[in-house]
Structures are given as structure tokens and as C-alpha cells.
């Protein structure tokens, strides 16, 4: 019985080697009964050179066998070998065509285009996006200044309570973390400075090193970075969720200007408190540096102060603090602007919040670099 089945299932096929490759002559009925055997037989064929499948003597052909034949052809053709069907009857031809059409086309991953022009286009897109963002921010700055000027003319519109609330949240709330951070930076600077300067016997200059680096750069820059992380994100989240819940639309409906109510107090609170936070950072940084200098190098506090007062120009302090309001403006504008870009879903709120932090920190560092160049040019 089994033998009989095998007999019936065996594909009827002759092999013949022609000049250009292989010729397979199929005979008799090719149906689902022997499709598996046909597939196995076809797989055994050496995969070199062109193959000709002669179906002249094929009686019945069904979709199963047609599927085997078509997929054999597709496989070979993908490998770059030619497969031709010959001796097809009209019925067989149309069956093969139909089966070929109904096979799912292989999903090839779209090649990531990376030609020179694509790269160029991408650079262009990024630059255009950046320019657009800067222009939008500039527009936002204009809006803020216009509303600020308006509240000067109409002081009753000014939201004093809101200003105090935000000043407390972004200023007072940030004092512990800013103080701790500055203290530790002072300690690290003193320790690293003393280790290096000791090699040259110039330990005493560690005071200048600490004073100049903290007062001029690090105090305010690191404070700004911390505030950018804390405050830009909270501004974006607060304004963004109001936007999401249509509260801003409702405000406009009630005749409240979102810029006056939401942006002016928030940005102003930052402009007022960031210089104070910068000052706190300066003091704590010097304290930490002085303490480490005392412990590690034996520079007494009195000597530290004398050296600090005599050796450090007041300009360093001024340069440091002058930058603070500008950084505050940048952080506040980016935070509020990102909040207004939030669309109606939570995902966009999350995206805008993280992008506000990244942009604010980046912009603060770029601005700091611009300040360095500026002060170097005017000889300060």
C-alpha cells in the first residue's frame, strides 16, 4: 500500500543536460499528490546554470504543483539563474500566471538611501529646521517684550502673585541643589588644581584658579544647566498640559492673553532669580574651594581671602553675573515655546518636555561660548 502510494506520489520527470544547462522534462499528472516529491526532486538539482522546465507531456496541473514550480523559478531567479517554462498549454500558462500573481511579493527592506545628495538634503533640512526654530524663538522673545512693555503701561494686568509663586518655585526651590553642586565643584577644582600645581610649587595659585573659573564661568554656567533641567521642563509640562486640556483656548475665550498670564510671570521670575542663584553658586563654590585648599594645602582662610581679594579682578564677578539674565531669558523662552508646541496627546507632551531641556542646555552653552568670544574681543 505504502509502496503504491509512493509510486503514485513519485514525480514523473526526466533529466537531460543540454548545452546551456539542465532540461527537466515533466510527465503525467502533476498535482497535490506528488507536489512534495516534486519539490524535493527540484531541490536536488544542482543550482548552477540555466534550467528549462518542459511541460509538454504534463497532463493535469493543479495549483499545488504550480506553486512548487513557480516558487522554484522565483528562488532560482533570485539567485541569478534563468528558469524557463517550455511546452506550456494555454491552461497551464494561465494557472502558473495566476499562482505567481497570488504569491506574496517578498518584502525587501527599503534601502536606506544615503547618496551624497541625500546627505546634503538632510544637512539642509536640519539647518532649515534650526533656522526656523531660532526665528520662532525670536518671535517669542518679541511677544514677551511686547507684553512686558504693555504691563508696564497697564500695571493692573500684571500677575504679581504668579510672579512671586514662580520665583519661589524656580529660585528658592533650586537653592539647595545649586548650593551643593557649587560647593562640590569648588572642592573638586581645589583638589585637582592643587595636585597639578604642586608639581611646580605653585600651590598658592590654586586660589586664583578657583576664583576665576568659578566666578567667571562655572558658577553661572552650571547653575544655568541645573535650572534648565529643572525649570525649562516644568514650564513646558505645565503650559503643555494646559494646551492639551484646551485651557489656553478657554483663556483666550475669556479674554485672557496667554502671553501675559503664562509667559511673562514665568520668564520674569527666571530673569530675577537666576542671577541670585548664580551668586549663591559663586559663594558656595568659593567656600568649597577654600575649605579644600585649607585641608589639602594648608592655605588658611585668612590667606585665601587675602589672595582672593588682591589677586582676582572684580571684572570676573561682573562678567559671570552679566550672563545670568541672558541665560534666564533663553531657558524661559525655550521652556514656554516648547509648551505651546504641544499637540493634543500625552506623547507630544513628553517629547516636547525632553526636547525643551536638551535645547535649553545646548542654547545656554552656545550663548556662553558667544559671551567668551565677546569678552575676549573687548579685552575683559
Amino acid at each position, binding site marked *: 500500500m505504502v509502496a503504491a502510494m509512493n509510486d503514485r506520489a513519485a514525480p514523473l520527470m526526466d533529466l537531460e543536460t543540454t548545452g546551456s544547462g539542465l532540461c527537466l522534462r515533466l510527465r503525467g499528472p502533476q498535482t497535490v499528490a506528488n507536489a512534495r516529491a516534486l519539490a524535493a526532486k527540484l531541490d536536488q538539482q544542482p543550482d548552477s546554470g540555466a534550467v528549462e522546465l518542459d511541460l509538454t507531456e504534463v497532463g493535469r496541473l493543479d495549483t499545488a504543483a504550480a506553486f512548487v514550480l513557480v516558487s522554484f523559478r522565483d528562488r532560482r531567479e533570485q539567485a541569478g539563474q534563468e528558469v524557463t517554462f517550455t511546452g506550456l498549454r494555454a491552461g497551464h500558462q494561465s494557472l502558473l500566471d495566476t499562482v505567481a500573481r497570488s504569491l506574496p511579493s517578498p518584502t525587501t527592506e527599503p534601502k536606506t538611501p544615503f547618496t551624497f545628495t541625500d546627505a546634503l538634503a538632510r544637512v539642509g533640512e536640519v539647518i532649515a529646521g534650526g533656522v526656523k526654530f531660532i526665528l520662532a524663538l525670536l518671535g517669542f522673545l518679541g511677544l514677551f517684550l511686547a507684553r512686558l512693555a504693555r504691563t508696564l503701561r497697564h500695571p493692573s494686568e500684571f500677575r504679581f502673585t504668579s510672579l512671586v509663586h514662580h520665583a519661589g518655585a524656580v529660585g528658592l526651590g533650586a537653592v539647595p541643589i545649586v548650593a551643593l553642586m557649587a560647593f562640590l565643584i569648588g572642592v573638586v577644582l581645589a583638589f585637582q588644581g592643587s595636585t597639578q600645581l604642586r608639581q611646580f610649587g605653585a600651590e598658592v595659585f590654586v586660589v586664583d584658579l578657583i576664583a576665576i573659573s568659578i566666578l567667571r564661568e562655572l558658577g553661572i554656567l552650571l547653575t544655568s544647566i541645573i535650572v534648565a533641567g529643572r525649570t525649562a521642563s516644568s514650564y513646558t509640562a505645565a503650559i503643555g498640559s494646559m494646551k492639551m486640556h*484646551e*485651557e489656553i*483656548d*478657554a483663556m483666550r475665550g475669556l479674554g485672557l492673553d496667554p502671553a501675559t498670564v503664562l509667559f511673562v510671570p514665568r520668564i520674569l521670575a527666571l530673569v530675577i532669580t537666576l542671577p541670585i542663584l548664580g551668586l549663591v553658586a559663586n559663594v558656595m563654590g568659593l567656600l568649597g574651594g577654600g575649605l579644600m585648599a585649607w585641608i589639602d594645602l594648608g592655605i588658611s582662610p585668612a590667606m585665601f581671602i587675602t589672595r582672593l581679594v588682591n589677586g582676582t579682578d572684580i571684572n570676573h564677578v561682573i562678567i559671570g553675573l552679566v550672563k545670568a539674565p541672558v541665560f534666564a531669558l533663553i531657558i524661559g523662552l525655550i521652556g514656554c515655546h516648547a509648551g505651546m508646541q504641544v499637540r493634543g496627546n500625552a506623547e507630544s507632551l513628553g517629547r516636547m518636555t525632553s526636547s525643551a531641556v536638551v535645547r535649553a542646555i545646548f542654547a545656554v552653552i552656545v550663548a556662553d561660548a558667544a559671551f567668551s568670544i565677546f569678552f575676549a574681543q573687548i579685552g575683559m
Partner: protein
Amino acid sequence: MATVELDNIKKRFGGTQVIHGVSTAIEDGEFIVIVGPSGCGKSTLLRMVAGLESVSEGEVRIDGERVNEREPMARDIAMVFQNYALYPHMSVRQNMGYGLKIAGLPKSEIAAKVDEAAALLQLEPYLDRRPRELSGGQRQRVAMGRAIVREPKVFLFDEPLSNLDAKLRVQMRLEIRDLQNRLGITALYVTHDQVEAMTMADRMIVMNAGRAEQIGTPLEVYERPQTLFAAQFIGSPSMNVLDATMQDGVLHLGGATMPAPTTATGKVTVGLRPEHAIADPEGPLSLTVQMGEPLGANTLLHGRIGDGSEAFTISLPGVHHATAGERIAFRVLPENLHFFDPETGARID
């Protein structure tokens, strides 16, 4: 109290046009419902009337005056939002009176107006609560109270009931309609729910892909839909649509023929509301039932029409115990057949 006119309003976001010219005139005290599927531009249209979106082309007139360039506040409108947009840190009383406080009204006047609105909306017991202590329906009433106290010319509702549960929605539907009737204020109401549109509207604007498909009273739209879209969007369960042929005044539909009063010839699209099917053993049409949905008052039978493969639904009064595979013969009155152009979807009479 005011009229609102929309004159060929268009809206473009960058290069994409989302509203393709909508025109209508809304009469004083009328309740207009703008209905359509999500993304059809209905909310954008309302926001343009409110002044929350700029109008790219065309004109919005309130009481005959062009308001395109006016701020929302200066348009004398009040809008009720889907999310209520109440201030969480204010009590109900403060929320309702806030707009008036901004407008600089004296305190006594604000208190009087808030009390009046609270009485109207039955919010008196909750005046000193915060929004988070209220239920969804109560919050929506507060949002409406905030709109009412300002005595605006026009009420704008942006899907105000979609965050409420089904039972509350039915109740609020009646309350809003009743309130608008009593105050007599012109209202524009946006919804995606065709039942809300049918039950509340004086007239409705059926929107699809930024175009007004039909503007008319609910029954006009139901009885004489001007487009295939309006026909299928309004009515529940939605209208059956079949391809058919008209030849010499005889309709060939689902393997049956019947006389039909239409000027159409050749290939037509025929619309048939499920509730217009009349069970009749002698009827020319038949349904091969696949599934039945008994709703109590009526029974929906889903299946295939005739021997064809096209899905079809009929709604029969009362309870029908139909088993899958059963054939139910039915007929339709000729006046209940709707004919549409298969190419354009426009109605053919």
C-alpha cells in the same frame, strides 16, 4: 442673540487645505449641529468661528459684522470644551465668575449672575467645591455656567458630551437643548455622534473631508440625503447601499425587479434604510440571515441580500427569532428608495 454667517470659509495649514469653502447663514436663536467623522474639519470650523484659528479665506460675520480679525474675547462668544477646561485651583463659583472678573465687573454683579446661572443649572449645592470634587456631568454644567454668565451672542460647543457615559449623555443632551431654548442664544454644536445631531439640531451641517455635504433639518437629511455620505452617516444602523440597474423605469436590485420612481437610468447606487424593510412573505427581496440582534423594540437582522454576497441589514419591529441561514422575504415602499450617482455620490431624484 445674534445671527452668524459663514461665507465660503476655507482653512489651510501650510500646503494642506482642510476646509474647502463652507457657507451657511445661521439665524438668531437657532441651534446648529456640525456633525461628521473625526478629521472632517468640524472642530476647525468651530474654532474659526470662535477666533481660536485664523480664517485662510472667506468671512465670518456675527450680527452682520466681519469678525475675522477679532480676538475671541471681542467676538462676544462663549465656548464649551470637551475637557471642560476648568481651572482646578478655583472653586465652582470662582470658575464661573472668572470671565466677568477679568472683564472688570463689580463684585455684587458677578455674584448675582453666578447665582442666577447656578440656579439655572442646579449647581447651587456645589458652588464652593473644586472641579475635581465634581462628577463629569457636573463639571460640564460648570463649564456651561461659565459660558452663560457672560451672556454671549453665540454659544459654541466642541463635543461637550463625549467624555460622559451614555446615560448621562442622554440627560445632558436634553438639558443643553432646554437651556438653549430658554435663553434663546444662537448655538453651534460640534459632534461626531449622529444621534446627538438628530435629536438636538434645528439644522445640521453634515461635514466630510472639509466639505459641507448637506445642510438641513435632521428630518430633511434623513429623508432626502443629498449625497451618499450624508445618507450613510445619518441614521442608525446605517443605510444599506447596493449597486443596481435602472431599465425602462424598472429597478433591478438583488436579483429582484420592482418599479421605482426615479429619473435615473443605467447603473445606479441604491440606498435602503434597514428600518424601511417590511417583512412580507410575498416580497420581491429576501435576506439570508447570518446574525440577529434583538434590541427589544426591534430586531436587527444582518445577512446577505438574495443570493448575492452583499452585506445587508434590516430592522424589523418586535422580536424575531431568526436562525442563521434562514431566508426572510421583505419589500420596500418605492418612496423609501434613495438613488445616487455611482460616480459622484450625488442624489438622483
